[in-house]
């Protein structure tokens, strides 16, 4: 923004960012911050100290207070007590804009870009360079963008519309925009939740680069391996309280989990050996032009078939085709040996299938509706309906049973689902499908963006369902999850099945090999 701060930044990158050479030890300090909402203490005297030139991971279950804390730092919420210090000086961040101008940039989990504007316009909005007539100088804006991208090793056309970019590329734009403010503190909220492995590698390169430039990076994640790969330090929060800060080189996975949940999680992947039954679902030569080709596989009762592959390899598309969301052009689907014609999701449901979709917000939740209405939506076709009237009493009783079994955290069934944490929303959506008593359950990223505790619960539940004889197809981008849960792993690459591995022969290297070819 100002040329002074740009030159200051160049200086630090030359100095290679030695934190001790600054007049302050921490780029950002949160001191004894307390934030209450009606009925809840969201943050109870928490602290957080971010050193310049470090990546500081923020760990905690959903509802631990991470998001609230980030919103305080980003000027969205105002603390009831305590203070935020920037470069050693106490600051009052009245609005998100004030925070941005003070040097705090936040990259939200749901990217906040304007779809039908170009990359350059998105980055420089409100700060557009003007020409002699006071109109926007597009050439200059383009030049500034190219310069910024060069610095960050981002290879994108500044003139392309955001709507044409992949999620990963949109994220790059968000990062570039944040960097363009010459921020001292950059907050990233689960930046890898929707991007592929190669894109993650690129993102990490950029993060390391920013670290060298002296920026303090707050990195919120649920993924353990990322913590060890990228973070220098981490802080753990639980139930609105600050638990502690450690160097990531000092601890192991189990230590962190213990800090996060306050108890031991005996097993991350409670895989059980169950008796595998007959083939329930058999897919043969399923093809959708330009998306996937000749996909064939079987799933047996009690079996968990993992679907691995990079994002864009066609995993989710195959699942959508099997469930009738987007039908295939050719190929057959057999259930219990009989060929079935599935054109719409209700055909699939009628054949005992259930499909937990990848995107909770887009295709899962009815956000304006309450938990009861969300959990019942797949069973009010025939079951629980008499002469068109919904049998409320029986339906509510069973819904409550399911929600209790899944340990959905909510005051009552009339709570709007929008007010639940991601993990609890996911439990409600799983409950929706359990009510249908499925024989075939397709799970697309069942634990994305969910905290460790809820994750373990969902894994336990999947195991239990397999135990009860349900044929499970589980798509996941997290290899440990695929390896930990699956009996067999089907790997896809660019729309083709590149291999089906048995549990004992599958490992991380083999899968990545097949997935990346």
């Amino acid at each position, binding site marked *: 923004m100002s040329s002074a701060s740009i030159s200051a930044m160049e200086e630090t990158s030359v100095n290679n960012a030695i934190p001790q050479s600054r007049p302050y030890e921490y780029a950002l300090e949160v001191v004894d911050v307390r934030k209450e909402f009606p009925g809840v203490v969201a943050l109870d005297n928490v602290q957080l100290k971010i050193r310049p030139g470090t990546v500081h991971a923020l760990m905690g279950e959903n509802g631990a207070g991470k998001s609230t804390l980030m919103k305080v730092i980003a000027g969205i919420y105002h603390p009831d007590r305590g203070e935020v210090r920037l470069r050693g000086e106490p600051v009052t961040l009245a609005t998100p804009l004030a925070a941005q101008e003070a040097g705090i940039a936040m990259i939200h989990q749901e990217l906040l870009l304007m779809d039908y504007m170009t990359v350059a316009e998105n980055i420089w909005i409100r700060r557009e360079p003007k020409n002699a007539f006071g109109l926007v100088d597009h050439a200059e804006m383009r030049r500034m963008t190219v310069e910024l991208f060069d610095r960050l090793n981002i290879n994108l056309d500044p003139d392309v519309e955001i709507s044409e970019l992949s999620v990963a590329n949109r994220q790059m734009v968000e990062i570039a925009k944040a960097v363009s403010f010459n921020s001292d503190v950059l907050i990233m909220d689960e930046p890898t939740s929707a991007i592929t492995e190669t894109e993650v590698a690129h993102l990490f390169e950029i993060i390391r680069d920013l670290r060298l430039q002296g920026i303090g990076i707050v990195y919120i994640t649920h993924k353990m391996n990322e913590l060890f790969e990228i973070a220098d330090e981490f802080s753990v929060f639980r139930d609105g309280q600050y638990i502690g800060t450690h160097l990531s080189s000092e601890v192991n996975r189990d230590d962190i989990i213990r800090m996060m949940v306050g108890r031991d999680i005996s097993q991350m992947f409670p895989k059980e050996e169950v008796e595998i039954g007959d083939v329930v679902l058999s897919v043969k030569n399923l093809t959708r032009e330009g998306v996937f080709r000749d996909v064939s596989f079987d799933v047996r009762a009690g079996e968990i078939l993992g679907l691995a592959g990079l994002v864009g390899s066609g995993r989710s598309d195959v699942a959508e085709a099997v469930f009738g969301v987007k039908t295939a052009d050719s190929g057959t689907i057999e259930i219990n040996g009989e060929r079935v014609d599935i054109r*719409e999701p209700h055909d699939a449901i009628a054949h005992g299938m259930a*499909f937990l979709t990848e995107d909770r917000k887009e*295709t899962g939740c009815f956000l304006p509706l309450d938990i009861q209405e969300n959990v019942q939506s797949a069973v009010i076709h025939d079951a629980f309906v008499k002469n068109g009237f919904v049998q409320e009493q029986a339906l509510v009783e069973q819904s*409550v049973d399911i929600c209790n079994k899944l340990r959905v955290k909510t005051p009552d069934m009339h709570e709007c689902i929008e007010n639940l944490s991601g993990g609890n929303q996911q439990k409600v959506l799983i409950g929706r499908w359990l009510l249908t008593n499925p024989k075939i359950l397709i799970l697309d990223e069942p634990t994305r963006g969910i905290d460790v505790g809820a994750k373990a619960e969902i894994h336990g539940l999947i195991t239990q369902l397999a135990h009860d004889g349900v044929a499970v197809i589980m798509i996941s981008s997290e290899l440990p999850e695929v390896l930990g849960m699956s009996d067999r792993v089907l790997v896809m690459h660019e729309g083709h099945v590149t291999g089906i591995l048995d549990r004992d022969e599958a490992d991380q290297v083999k899968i990545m090999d097949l997935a990346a070819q």
Partner: protein
Amino acid sequence: MDAKTPLSAATKKRLPPEFSILLVLVGIACLFEVLGWFLVGQSFLANMSRLQIIILQVSVIGIIAVGVTQVIITGGIDLSSGSVVAMSGMIAATFAQDANWPKIIHPSLVDLPFIVPLFVGLAVGAAAGFVNGWLITKTKIPPFIATLGMMVSARGIARWYTDGSPVSGFTESFAMIGNGMGRWMPVVVFLIVALVFHIVMRYTRFGKFTYAIGANPQAARVSGINIDAHLIKVYMIAGLLAGLAAMVAIARIKTAQAGMGMMYELDAIAAAVIGGVSLSGGRGRITGTVIGALILGVMLSGFTFLRVDAYYQDIIKGAIIVAAVVVDMHRQNKRKKAS
């Protein structure tokens, strides 16, 4: 986290969201009462014929609004209701004429039982709704555009059908649809329609599908709901109710003309919106719409009673519609933040 008390099927009694709108209605009525004593020197409420006029005026809009409410809950909009009233009114009227009337449109079709024109009116309305729904689901054009097209075309058909001349001279039995039960018939029809669809929306699969589609069409589809078929039904109901409103209206005033029902669609949408139906879909109740329609009626009558100029009436009405949405948005935001 484990120490939570389990959920139970027993529901906590919550104040229905319509309660605040009801308070607004009572408040407005009281305001007119007080102003009435001060400015006009008489009571606003203690006047049976005024109350009857209010509720009779509200009934026709109210019947339409019940259908429009459902369309809005699916996340759509219906701009065609007013024109559909005119179209089905005109067409049905030509089947309702008495043989002794001097200007007969279909000389061979006179003195028919009232059920014939009634059926024709409802069928024309439902057909218009079907076209709306079909266009929206099959061509994927926005509901705003599809029903805007119908709004213009249906008005055109209403004019073309009799070359613009009004149709009168209904049989006694047909006129009863608007004047029966001691002239309370429109109110009775309105209340029955509201009650039926209140039950449909709250207790039947059909109603729950409507809410689900409005809340998230993609999630509704994955849940196995046939969205296209359902939307067509909802638009047909809206058209059918516009047709029914037309029958009540022409039977009451014993004449049909191509210019009737002008702006009814906007009054119906206004009633729904004032009643708390969310234009973004998925939220709202029939009871709210009924109260919303009553608020419109009370205001109209109150302003006339206070001899407020018609121009001011429209200005104030517009402001109140906007205010209703502002209040609703504010309430939704507050609810979200409370989490």
